[in-house]
């Protein structure tokens, strides 16, 4: 166990519940809603405990609606946890929002925090004064930025004239500007092209190395994870599924192989058919849509066996055999959790609604 003061973030049994009004339909329903006390409780984050030492880059993963953004909103002082103990830089974020904000940087992908009408350099100047960054540190930081990416063309452009990629890049630069101890990045690479993604990964990596910044990264892009994170935390339905080294996870799935195939014909249709034909393997398509991937657990069934089954009914134009990819590991974990959850929720369907 690490000492508390070595930890950037300590979460103990954190939960967050939202009360949502059960809305009724129609005009009469809306009128009734005005006086309604009929609330449903949604548990977005459910009893999560993590300790994050300084300087780490942690991939905070989970399927849509898992509770990742909600966790980040608690860590940044926007939301108050319903239960549990949360310390960021040794203080409770919700109670010390402004003080906490001095030592963190935040980027919510697709939601710019820069002044819309101002050129980036003016935004930076304002931030310099808001965070009271000393002149020399500010100058050094800009030089460091320039050595990593070409910021010169961005500086004089009003934010509202920027492309999504340029804006995200600017937002990330702004988040690191005051050299915060922790930076939260919620889906920073969403909607970006391959080259911008790689630029942003380089930038985050370099800043983490050079400044020792702790980074909490939420993403659905396993390329981000491969490039940046040693440790990953996976949550689903608000509950912690996994928290460990990614290497450890890969070893855990050591008997798995990814079989990549190029078949003639329509990939989407093949995906459906193959999923039905080989139920013991998980079938997917790669991000560039070039390959069909079949994840095989060699302890259950040999790769060659699966391949020959496929060859019986498809023409294989090209194939590759790989160790399990991060993408597949994560998908496997999501799918397994889903299966368990599906079974569990059927039993508790009735009891899950509170008044």
């Amino acid at each position: 166990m690490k000492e508390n003061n070595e930890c950037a973030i300590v979460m103990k049994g954190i939960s967050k519940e939202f009360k949502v009004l059960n809305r009724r339909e129609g005009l009469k329903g809306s009128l009734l809603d005005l006086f309604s006390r009929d609330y449903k409780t949604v548990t977005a984050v459910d009893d999560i405990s993590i300790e994050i030492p300084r300087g780490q880059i942690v991939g905070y993963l989970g399927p849509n609606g898992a509770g990742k953004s909600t966790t980040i909103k608690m860590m940044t002082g926007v939301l108050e946890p319903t239960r549990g103990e949360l310390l960021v830089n040794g203080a409770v974020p919700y109670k010390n929002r402004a003080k906490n904000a001095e030592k963190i940087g935040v980027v919510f992908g697709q939601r710019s925090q820069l002044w819309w009408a101002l050129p980036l350099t003016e935004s930076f100047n304002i931030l310099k004064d808001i965070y009271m960054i000393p002149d020399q540190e500010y100058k050094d930081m800009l030089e460091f930025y320039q050595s990593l990416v070409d910021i010169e063309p961005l500086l004089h452009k009003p934010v509202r004239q920027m492309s999504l990629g340029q804006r995200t890049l600017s937002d990330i630069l702004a988040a690191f500007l005051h050299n915060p101890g922790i930076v939260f990045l919620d889906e920073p690479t969403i909607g970006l092209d391959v080259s911008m993604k790689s630029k942003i990964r380089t930038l985050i990596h370099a800043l983490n190395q050079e400044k020792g910044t702790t980074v909490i990264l939420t993403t659905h892009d396993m390329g981000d994870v491969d490039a940046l994170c040693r440790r990953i935390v996976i949550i689903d339905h608000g509950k912690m599924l996994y928290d460990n080294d990614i290497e450890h996870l890969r070893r855990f799935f050591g008997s798995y192989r990814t079989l990549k195939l190029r078949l003639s014909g329509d990939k989407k249709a093949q995906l459906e058919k193959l999923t039905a034909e080989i139920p013991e393997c998980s079938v997917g398509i790669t991000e560039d849509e070039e390959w069909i991937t079949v994840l095989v657990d060699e302890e259950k069934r040999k790769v060659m066996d699966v391949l020959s089954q496929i060859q019986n009914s498809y023409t294989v134009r090209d194939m590759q055999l790989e160790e399990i990819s991060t993408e597949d590991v994560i998908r496997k974990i999501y799918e397994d959790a889903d299966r368990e959850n599906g079974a569990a929720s059927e039993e508790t369907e009735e009891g899950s609604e509170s008044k």
Partner: protein
Amino acid sequence: MTNSISKKRGLGFYLHIYRMIVIQDIKSKMSYRSDFIISTVGMIATNVTGFISFWILFRNFPSISGWGYYEMLFLYGFSLISLTPVQCLFDNNWSLRQNVFSGDFIKYYFRPINIFFYYQSEIFDVKGLGQLAFGIGTLVYAWAKLGIPVTVLAVVELVVFLITASLIMIALQNAAAATCFWINNSFYVLDLAYKFRDYAKYPITIFGPVFKFVFTFLIPIAFIAYYPSLVILRPDEIPVLTWLSPVIGLIFFGLSYKFWMLGVRKYNGTGS
């Protein structure tokens, strides 16, 4: 690494940041020249038509409830000036609902400064300055026509009560805007608060006793122009309430700020 002592951010700091943001904002607005010209023309037209309708309405009556034409004009000018701060400095209240609804509002939590300040500093509405010029012109003209002696005391009183009136108008708008943290259709509340300010131009005595009570104690728009103007216009019959109005202004502003910040604290954001 980051230093552990928290940096002090006082009034000087906030004024400095405000100035920086506003100068940049005005600079960038002026760079869209046609936009700037059109909105300036629009602002002048609004003020001129406002004045013309006032003039058509009141020039034919020698007095209404004992209030003469120039006294009415004085009230009109007074209310224009006292509405300037809310127009110039707090115009972003109009976008609050949109920001809260879309979830964009969470970005205001991420800076180490007061959220109310940060939010309001984002917009400075230059158009309000035209209204200010118009109001001052009207007030000075009415003052001269009424032949009220210009003393240091009168000017000080005027300034104090203008500030009071502004605070009340700002308070009204803050409170109305902040309802969006609790209800979806808060636009109507804000719009209603905006419409009320039209009544601020008239002496409260022309309304019946019910409205007189409402506009004094519930929705205190009588403090925007009527009660303060009495100090200059009717120095012999000033009600106690007038002397209380600076305090009432501060209290209302304080309460509206607390209400706004209460919304900030309980805001849950959106699911995405």
